[in-house]
């Protein structure tokens, strides 16, 4: 007698968050009145009911082993009745109703190598992507650079000594998985050579019209190579976006000597004070120099330092630059202004300085 097949479970979606809320949160849901910044990495939210919930935020490399997740779970059991969450920037937050648990939790975290911080006017965790660990598109690694940069900015995570919040993000290619394009500082992997067409396979594995249509600048045209239908790339029209490669594996554009990093500054997401905005190009190219990427680390640290020294309270990176102007930003940071800083894509004309508002 055959056993009836187990009904396959699908389309159930995630378990409801309600199952995972701390009792104090459940009780005070929607009733929070205000919060206090207790210390770097420690928040206290106070409810209309008088209840308080404490948050201890710890930095994480995001790429976590199940060992570490189990460690977090154990700490949550020990101090938080098992309740914790992660943030939109991949930090882990322990939710406590007992103030006296804060210190021991902090110490346990510290002992395990996880810093507490990232709240208020600190540099929070770097939002980042897969890099060489997992993505075929990557022009650089992600986790490695993040590690090096955060090592250098560690004190800015555990202390709150910035004029305002600072959000750093990294994406390993122009697909920009993550809000890289709206970060105070964005670290972006870039290619600098056009795709090398694989004339042998392209006709078999890709739809050539799709490949041609994928190019934002129309750089790709049909070609016949060794009697086979293929494409060719007009080198001057290619800006190495990699969109053709996303569409077609026969268009790889990795090139170790020319792949590298660009640095972008002054973007933001929040609507606080000024409107959200894109980050703008600061450094067009820095080489990939693993394992510690000193050029990238120095560049980021330099920008952070100049910002910290010069910005006024409440000024995010971009707001500070608004006030002092881009010429002075380049001047203070010692970064060279080049032809590449001048936009030449679709709406380029709108970035030219069309006023006599000039600082000298």
């Amino acid at each position, binding site marked *: 007698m055959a056993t009836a097949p187990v009904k396959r479970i699908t389309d159930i*979606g995630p378990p409801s968050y309600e199952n995972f809320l701390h009792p104090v949160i459940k009780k005070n849901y929607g009733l929070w009145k205000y919060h206090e910044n207790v210390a770097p990495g420690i928040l206290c939210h106070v409810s209309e009911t008088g209840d308080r919930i404490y948050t201890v935020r710890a930095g994480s490399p*995001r790429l976590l082993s199940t060992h570490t997740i189990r460690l977090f779970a154990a700490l*949550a059991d020990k101090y938080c009745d098992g309740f914790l969450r992660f943030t939109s920037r991949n930090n882990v937050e322990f939710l406590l109703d007992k103030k006296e648990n804060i210190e021991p939790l902090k110490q346990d975290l510290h002992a395990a190598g996880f810093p507490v911080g990232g709240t208020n006017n600190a540099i929070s965790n770097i939002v980042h992507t897969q890099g*060489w660990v997992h993505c075929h598109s990557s022009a650089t690694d992600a986790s490695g650079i993040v590690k090096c940069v955060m090592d250098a900015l560690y004190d800015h995570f555990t202390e709150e000594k910035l004029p305002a919040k600072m959000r750093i993000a990294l994406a390993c290619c122009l697909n920009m998985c993550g809000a890289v394009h709206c970060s105070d500082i964005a670290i972006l992997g870039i290619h600098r050579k056009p795709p090398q067409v694989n004339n042998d396979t392209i006709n078999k594995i890709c739809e050539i019209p799709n490949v041609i249509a994928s190019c934002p600048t129309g750089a790709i045209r049909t070609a016949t190579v060794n009697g086979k239908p293929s494409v060719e790339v007009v080198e001057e029209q290619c800006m190495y976006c990699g969109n053709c490669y996303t569409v077609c594996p026969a268009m790889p554009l990795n090139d170790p000597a020319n792949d590298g990093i660009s640095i972008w500054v002054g973007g933001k997401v929040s609507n606080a004070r000024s409107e959200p905005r894109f980050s703008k190009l600061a450094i067009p190219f820095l080489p990939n120099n693993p394992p510690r990427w000193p050029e990238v680390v120095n560049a980021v640290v330099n920008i952070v330092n100049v910002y910290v020294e010069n910005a006024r309270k409440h000024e995010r990176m971009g707001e500070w630059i608004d006030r002092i102007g881009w010429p002075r930003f380049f001047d203070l940071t010692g970064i060279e202004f080049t032809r590449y800083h001048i936009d030449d894509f679709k709406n380029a004309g709108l970035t030219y300085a069309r006023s006599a508002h000039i600082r000298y």
Partner: protein
Amino acid sequence: MADKKYETPMLDELEKGPWPSFVKEIKKSTDISPACQDLLGVLEVSYEDKKNHWKHGGIVGVMGYGGGIIGRYSDMPEQFPEVAHFHTIRVNMPTGWFYTSDALRTLCDIWDRHGSGLTNMHGSTGDVIFLGTTTDELEPTFKDLTAAGFDLGGSGSCVRTPSACVGQARCEWACYDTLAACNDITQTYQDELHRPAFPYKFKFKFSGCPNDCVASIARSDLAIIGTWKDEIQQDDAAVAEYAASGLDIQKDVCGHCPSKCMEWDGQKLRISNRECVHCMHCINVMPKALRPGKEKGAAILIGAKAPIVQGALLASVLIPFVPAEELLDTIKELTSRIWDFWGEYGKNRERIGELIQRVGMANFLDAIGLDPVPEMVSAPRDNPYVYFKAEDKI
């Protein structure tokens, strides 16, 4: 930790320094799966070569779903056979990334059984990323996940895993229930999430207030940003306390108000709420004294995306204000009209934001049956190149 299989002098450098090390994490996991050793191996090669060693992902998945799995193959399978296949599984996180320790352990157990033991907590879209397994393990992992009450997230041309800020669970500023809304939308669109049928991806993100802690305005096709319509709730005694405790209200609060609608005479703070643009700054600086108003709801913005193909876009205002009670119905009604139009007119790999750019906002509004309002634009047109419609002419 299992025995070392490869020399990884470069990666070893990344175990140094105070910030927690992802290399340590990979090394820790070598006792879970041999794939971790080979991952270290191939990554070391990448560090030497300065390029990745992955091939363009193939189409792999679980039965009946078109998304949720990212296929990944090594381009050095002979040297690193354990990562010859190294697919990721996107597991839809609980809304707001809330967990119990048990729930986390459940996920760990499943992943230790079927994969590398490596994760991303979380992916940029918000999913739990199970990082690396073979094709054979996909279906069993899925079975265990659903049995435990979890499901996959999105990938491909479908609804992507929606995400929400912590919201009313722990934030005093949430102007609507982001968690409930996000969870409802996630459940409502399970079919669209798992079975790619769109021109391209579609992302929802829910932020409870204009601080936008899930970066919805930068990263989602439909951004729901909480806000309020009436006056900022003001506690004058608390304002005075801030002033007494040394806050320079003129400079630090009024001086940064983008609409210049605040006045401080040393005694009393006066806000011209009519001009307030709801930026949150004053509230952020004085959380004990100022709070969003009582008439709460959200603005709905449309069309954010990363640069590929036609350039990055921030989301733009579609509906300036929807009362909190009407929010879910409005989102669903709107979404169905948007998808109808996008499905019909969207080109392959054309996000909704790019489609709107291409056809023009006014035509888009016609198509989805919304009236134009000035809140949708930062300013009216400045060029006189107006296409008058036949019905408006003589």
